[in-house]
């Protein structure tokens, strides 16, 4: 497999596996295992935004959290500039964490309510004292607040005094305090009012561009992901089923699940809605505790054959279109295809 690499990679992820203990089968039976992420491989270049999309239970948030070592991977490597995040010693991990920061869906829950905004931002420098001398804290806090579109005077206020959009801006300022190379955003706009989402999306895109940050952008909103990402990975039941440039995935998807997912999103344009073709998948995703054999999507796939049950498809560029997908029957969607 040769992943598409637009520049020098900052992050290389190989064979990432994260399992969770599941429910016991019966009173004394063995515990099942939930394969939240089951072997993820990808790279992230400097200055690149990788969008990760998928439905609930697909493993996208687990992938992000495992990369940050907020939970321990069961297998695999994640190399940040060649250094493995998963095996780093506590001291080395602290050094790595300075370079990778997180923006959460609801930063309010992560803020100490008794801290002022300045305290929240400066806490990063308290933990990493060699980053910035104390004398510069207030000047730098003011700069960061202005960069995220807040007044410098807000530093003395408490988080409860702010709206959702403003809190997310504070969360972004906090994440930028250490000057990270990698920003992991987990559903950063999905808790915001629709009229405010675009403000935060534009802010993240601008910060990514001006600082040449690498960004992992996890979201279920496909339109937002398309807007902000250079490349996109689509996850289904713990597997990356398709990965490619934003254009390749959104315009020329070759995995049936990606095609179904894209066609399911309602388009904000009533013109021609009667003619629009939609692939409606049957049923619900299977349980990640007992994923189907072979291809995990086969139970809902209209292209499934015997081979799909027997043999797990590898992530390959089968059509030479630059979109890498894990499907034995990968193909561009034609007007004749579609389950509906």
């Amino acid at each position: 497999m040769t992943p598409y690499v637009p520049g020098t990679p900052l992050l290389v992820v190989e064979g990432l596996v994260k399992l969770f203990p599941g429910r016991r089968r019966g009173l004394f039976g063995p515990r099942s295992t939930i394969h939240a992420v089951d072997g993820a491989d990808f790279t992230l270049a400097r200055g690149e935004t990788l969008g990760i999309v998928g439905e609930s239970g697909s493993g996208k948030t687990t992938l992000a959290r495992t990369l940050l070592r907020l939970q321990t991977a069961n297998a695999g490597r994640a190399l940040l500039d060649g250094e493995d995040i998963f095996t780093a010693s506590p001291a080395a991990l602290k050094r790595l964490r300075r370079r990778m920061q997180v923006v959460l869906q609801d930063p309010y829950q992560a803020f100490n309510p008794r801290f002022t905004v300045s305290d929240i931002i400066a806490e990063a420098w308290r933990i990493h004292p060699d980053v910035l001398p104390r004398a510069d804290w207030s000047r730098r806090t003011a700069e960061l607040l202005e960069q995220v579109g807040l007044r410098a005077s807000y530093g003395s206020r408490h988080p409860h005094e702010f709206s959702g959009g403003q809190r997310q801006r504070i969360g972004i300022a906090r994440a930028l305090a250490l000057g990270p190379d990698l920003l992991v955003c987990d559903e950063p706009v999905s808790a915001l009012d629709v009229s405010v989402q675009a403000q935060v999306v534009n802010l993240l895109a601008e910060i990514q561009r001006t600082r040449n940050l690498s960004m992992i952008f996890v979201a279920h909103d496909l339109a937002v992901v398309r807007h902000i990402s250079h490349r996109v990975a689509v996850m289904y039941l713990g597997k990356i089923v398709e990965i490619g440039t934003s254009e390749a995935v959104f315009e020329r998807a070759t995995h049936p699940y990606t095609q179904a997912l894209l066609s399911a999103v309602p388009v904000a344009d009533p013109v021609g809605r009667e003619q629009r073709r939609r692939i409606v998948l049957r049923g619900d995703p299977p349980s990640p505790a007992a994923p189907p054999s072979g291809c995990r999507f086969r139970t809902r796939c209209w292209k499934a054959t015997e081979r799909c049950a027997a043999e797990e498809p590898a992530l390959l560029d089968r059509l030479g279109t630059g979109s890498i997908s894990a499907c034995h029957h990968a193909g561009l969607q034609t007007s004749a295809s579609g389950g509906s």
Partner: protein
Amino acid sequence: MTLDPRGSILDIRDLHVSFRTSGSPVTVLNGVTFQVARGEVLALLGESGSGKSVTAAATMGLIEQPPGSIDRGAILFDGVNLLGLSPADHRRLCGERLSLVFQDALAALNPVYPVGWQIAEVFRIHGRADRKTAALESIKLMEAVGIPAAAERAGHYPHQFSGGMCQRIMIAMAIALQPELIIADEPTTALDVTIQAQIVELLKALRARTGASLVLITHDLGLVAELADRVVVMYGGRVVEEAGVHDIFARPLHPYTQALLASQPRMDRSNAELRPIRGIPPNPAAPLTGCAFHPRCPRAEARCAQEAPADQMIAPGRRSACHFAAEMLA
């Protein structure tokens, strides 16, 4: 879309609702007026706090008084003012002739009763069928909303169903007595996109089959474009615009609607520029003078901060509450 000659099934006039929690009452609906024609799908589009769910709650008689208070206005259902009915009469109507589908189906279902029993309850409460017939009817309804192995599944409890299946059960309850009006409050917001598509298809099919009117409450422009015949846009407890679905998307005549459309990324377009709406949604506890949108509006003039714009009819079937609506049309 013209109004059905049989007239409107729901006619909400100048509805004012406030809530008193601590201190002075907070006005959440400030003169809401719109009609729903028979057989149409009307989308009530707005963000959290715009008043769209309170409008639904008032219609269904679900506003607890106190702390809520319906200060003024009328809600006419087939000519009868629901606000003048006794709670018992209101309840009888709800379920029989109008029904509600909630956003969070799992929370709306009773966790300790099997789902078949809960659907059958609708028939029993309204005295439509005995236990046995009600149970059979509930299985038929589960089949109608696409639940596989309905006879067996009727004995299962809500937690044994996925979110999409729970929503189907809610819909089965809502259509049980063949109401003339169904209000669906964010029916797909809590669902994954492929499951959302299933529910949208189900709503379309039911609409074609039953001919009931549907009020779709949502903040999702895609869902509106997909399902609605007509759109009522709410902002800050008021209706700011009303138009047919094609006009709303092709030529919105209120700056809020225009800004909302320009701020949303679209799946079918790459990297078109997002133009955010500046500022934050209005706080009902700190009401503004003039137009509620004026602090965020690119067109605002001094007048907008002082004078609340009248709800003007600008063209047949088109209303806009903006001082500049007529200019925008020209």
